[in-house]
């Protein structure tokens, strides 16, 4: 087991003919992910190293029945591509694209909720999902992770690699690594993914990697206290971020006291979640609990 992507994944990629899109699609394919097609308007009928390209999600859905979509198109086309994939019946959409306007994200989130409630969106502005040994959808460097029983959910990419690598070096592996992205309106929250890990038989411990801004970590704390029996270890980045400064992720805006790293760590600890002060300490706590 694992969550969201595995041997049953049938992946199609929007933006497969672009430089980044083709590079990462082929990487994912080499890892063993079943890549069944790609979508680039105007390039239907072509192929990318044998992967058939379609003009639209509807055509891709009809011909190769993808159950997972990866979105790699530029920001201005991403919202419509996500919605088109959902309308074509794709159940899981993973949007890697960074820089989508927040109003587009808001429209996508609410349209999915109203018109396509059975489609789950991960991202945008995320590194994707890796289930070691099974499938990789996105840009996570798979070689730093081993298969195992730790479920990782994170708002940041490289920080996830750091934590996953420390866990691997301690001899442990991951069931799935899910990057939910750091944007203002992510398709899925910590709570959504933690719910999946709680239900997943392979996962024995959950690592939550958060950062300043918003209230997703605080909401996760409430959810964990009420619904999660597996141990959860958390990390929060941004203790030294000054108020009012924005550091990269649109999600990481500190204003006033709400959304600070200290407030988030406190909210999690108050609900019994251990919070590591460094990525190394997170891995150490996780490993201690697993042994």
């Amino acid at each position: 087991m694992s969550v969201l992507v595995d041997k049953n994944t049938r992946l199609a990629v929007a933006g497969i003919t672009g430089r980044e899109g083709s590079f990462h699609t082929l990487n994912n394919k080499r890892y063993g992910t079943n890549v069944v097609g790609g979508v680039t308007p105007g390039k239907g009928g072509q192929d990318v190293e044998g992967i058939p390209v379609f003009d639209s999600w509807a055509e891709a859905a009809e011909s190769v029945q993808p159950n997972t979509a990866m979105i790699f198109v530029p920001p201005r086309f991403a919202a419509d591509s996500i919605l088109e994939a959902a309308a074509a019946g794709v159940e899981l959409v993973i949007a890697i694209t960074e820089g989508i306007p927040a109003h587009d994200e808001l429209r996508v989130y609410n349209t999915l909720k109203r018109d396509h409630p059975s489609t789950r969106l991960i991202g945008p502005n995320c590194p994707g999902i890796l289930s070691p040994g099974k499938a990789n959808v996105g840009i996570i460097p798979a070689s730093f992770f081993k298969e195992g029983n730790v479920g990782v959910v994170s708002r940041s990419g490289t920080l996830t690699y750091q934590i996953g690598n420390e866990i691997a070096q301690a001899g442990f592996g991951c069931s799935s690594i899910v990057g939910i992205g750091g944007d203002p309106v992510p398709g899925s929250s910590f709570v959504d993914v933690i719910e999946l890990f709680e239900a997943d038989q392979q996962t024995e411990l959950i690592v939550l990697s958060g950062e300043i801004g918003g209230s997703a970590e605080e909401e996760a704390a409430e959810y964990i206290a009420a619904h999660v029996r597996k141990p959860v270890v958390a990390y929060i980045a941004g203790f030294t971020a000054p108020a009012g400064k924005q550091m990269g992720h649109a999600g990481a805006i500190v204003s006033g006291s709400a959304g600070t790293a200290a407030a988030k760590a406190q909210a999690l600890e108050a609900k019994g979640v251990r919070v590591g002060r460094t990525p190394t300490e997170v891995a150490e706590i996780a490993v201690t609990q697993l042994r």
Partner: protein
Amino acid sequence: MGSCVRVPRRMDLLEYQGKQLFARHGLRVSDGKAVTNVKDAIAAANEVGYPVVVKAQVLIGGRGKAGGVKLAADEDEAEEHATNILGMDIHGHTVRTLWIEHASDIATEYYASVLLDRSAKQPLVMFSVEGGVDIEEVAEQTPEKLIRHHVDALDGLSREEAVQIATDGKADADVIEGVADALVALYEVWLQEDASLAEINPLIVTPDREVKALDSKVSLDDNALYRHPENQELADKENEDPIERRAKEQGVQYVKLDGDIGILGNGAGLVMSTLDVVAQAGGRPANFLDAGGGSDAAKIKQAVELILANDAVKAVLFNIFGGITRCDEVAKGLIAAFDDIKPSVPFVVRLDGTNDVAGRELLQEAALPNVHAARTMNEAAEKVVALAAGKSIGADD
């Protein structure tokens, strides 16, 4: 990530720029002019008619208390205030622009805003009859006086809803319609201009019962600027930190901080985490710099130049976990930077991830002066903190 993508930023507008957007969407504002020198200020004051308000245009609160907002009854006073306020320092922001506006008579002060509620994932309209004061205090002390209304993002704010908000908020009966008009217009500003925040405090009612925006606070979504070419020039470039501006032009995420340890990493989360680990080791970061994914040698060299442009930097930490970024490219960039600019401060470099062995070998062969290797993030932080404090840390590795 690749060339087609960039990290989201927000863009805060000056009061007068926000008001210009307001006017574009039918919100009432006073006539005024933005000026940058005393002569133009006097001409503007004469044109809009006395009494005028001379208002410092800076992206920071507390302008009034700092003496940056003054009423002028005639030309002499306008000249005096313009002279005093131009160049004034308000909490670290230099006043370079004034907004001269015809003074409004005020009967009542309200508050209105529209923003993206990330938690509810819906637009949030807020309204209060307690305007002109710190709205966070109102929210805390008399929450019943701050109306919070979530709008369906797909349907938008209807006029009926706006009337209901004004009514629930206990706006004066004779201005319910005027307040509703203002709320609908403010929602349009937020929606059509891709704003993350559109706020009016105070939203005034004049003695002849006109509803007007006396101030503005607007933040635009930088990611949506491609849809608004007319808004691209609105950034407060003059008050940007010069290094931050240079970084922006180069497409590098750089934020200046007040410490003495330069930081470079890849990925916003990892860089934030690096700042924390350095602080825990007793150091003070001089900057946040996210070189981004897939940085090549040229970009790394530019980043080194940015970090060293800050004279306060006494030591530099490179913390790289290569995913898309290749550690050998990072090493090449650092070597190129050393060839070119010959830094005088020590560097600590931690390379992990894609091509890390090759990167470390390149650095070892280059034997750059005063560059120290570290294997873990914690070790790197401890080393750089010691170096910044002027301590020697012994042999490499």
